């Protein structure tokens, strides 16, 4: 009986948490349409989530593109179709790797910092202080982060795609001797608007997932240093897993 009770209690707790997370998302977005609109806060957050992630995104994109070209070249050469290397690199970048890898990098870099920042504000009563000043803490703290993430992640993904395709060019054309012309022309003929559109849709939803999960975990952190450490770990793990799961769901809908 105790076992069943235990399982039941855990299931109920999980469902309650899911409900709380959803409410958190809806409330934070609800505040988006209420004045004052904190444009400066949004720009500040975009600087942090977006601009400061550019270096790590460029670096990972470059090597991802390079390794894709390397792998693709050896596979395609078996069929004598090295000329399709450009399209192979571009399609996997735009449809899949760009959105997923860029989002995972943003989660690791900015998401963990978001959880830690909000968590510390919770522990040191700064969030309570906002509330006592009759300032809604979701409106002030969370909404700007969500908007900034929603704008920044698609831009970073676009950058990732471009740099990745460039990296593929470096290895494919300069190192392995594929003709530059066929690299670009195969991209031009193979990449459709639907591919780009799907990538944008993915990156927008990943942007929401990152800020949603990471802000939630920070906002409801347990009141201790240990609790904050746990919250940061959980937020990165949960956001990463959700990104990969949602990626599958979205891909199966889009295809």
């Amino acid at each position: 009986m105790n076992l069943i009770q235990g399982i039941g209690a855990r299931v109920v707790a999980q469902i309650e948490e899911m409900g709380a997370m959803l409410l958190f998302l809806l409330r934070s977005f609800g505040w988006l349409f209420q004045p004052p609109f904190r444009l400066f806060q949004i720009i500040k957050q975009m600087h942090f989530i977006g601009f400061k992630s550019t270096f790590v995104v460029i670096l990972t994109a470059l090597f991802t593109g390079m390794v894709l070209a390397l792998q693709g070249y050896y596979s395609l050469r078996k069929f004598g179709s090295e000329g399709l290397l450009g399209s192979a690199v571009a399609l996997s970048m735009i449809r899949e790797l760009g959105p997923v890898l860029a989002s995972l990098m943003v989660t690791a870099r900015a998401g963990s910092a978001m959880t830690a920042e909000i968590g510390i504000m919770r522990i040191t009563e700064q969030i309570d202080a906002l509330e006592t000043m009759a300032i809604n803490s979701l409106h002030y703290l969370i909404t700007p982060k969500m908007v900034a993430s929603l704008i920044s992640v698609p831009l970073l993904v676009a950058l990732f795609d471009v740099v990745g395709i460039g990296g593929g060019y470096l290895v494919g054309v300069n190192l392995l001797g594929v003709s530059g012309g066929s690299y670009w022309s195969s991209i031009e003929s193979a990449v459709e608007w639907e591919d780009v559109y799907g990538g944008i849709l993915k990156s927008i939803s990943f942007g929401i997932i990152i800020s949603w999960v990471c802000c939630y975990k920070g906002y409801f952190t347990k009141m201790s240093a240990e609790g904050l450490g746990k919250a940061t770990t959980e937020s990165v793990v949960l956001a990463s897993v959700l990104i990969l799961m949602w990626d599958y769901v979205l891909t199966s809908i889009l295809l």
Partner: protein
Amino acid sequence: MGTPIIIQLKGVEKTLGGQPVLRGVDLAIPKGDITTIIGPSGEGKSVLLKHIIGLMRPDRGQVLVDGVNIAQIHDRELNQIRKKFSMLFQSAALFDSMDVFDNVAFPLREKRLVSESDVQRYVPEMLERVGLGKMGHKFPAELSGGMKKRAGLARALVMGPEIILFDEPTTGLDPLMAHAIHDLILAMHKTFGFTGIMVSHEIPRIFPISDWVAMLKNGKILAMERSEEFQRLSDPLVREFISVPDAMATT
């Protein structure tokens, strides 16, 4: 009591993490006076304070602020009521991403009640009053515990609130600094005439600065009297609590 009542708690009960903390608190806070709530650590004094400003809501009972029950109102209405309040937190809760000046200016700018030139004039004046005249450009991390409390007090005062809540304003300070903070609270009370509600276990230091003293014990208000009378109470639980520091001070 004669004095008008600004805040009244009726039968407030709260359970946290399966542990009953407040078990039916009845308390009336007189307007314009300083009321101090004392009691052993872990009795839920801070929890009680958070109920008064609506950071926590009771499981049962009423919290009446100027006759409005804030235990059951919508967040939007609660924010209207909160405009009467300020709170000085135990850790001062300064925003660590801003310097002291911006911290004190924050509520003014956020509420857009005054122009920026008024902020530039008014904030240094307030910092001067709490003894932080030249500290406006410092960040909270660069301040000592006492300075943080001063900055927190300046931020609490800047909106001209009717009611200020003090959550253990002298915890973690050395006796001299604690004395200075108490004096500052008293001086600011004389200047601005707010209703002060303080949670503290600084006995006997709180007696001279409080008009009223209430003791929280086992989740209920054990006694509430005028400061002088409270010190003469014969209730053994009160005596035990307020005489221990006396004994320590004499040894």
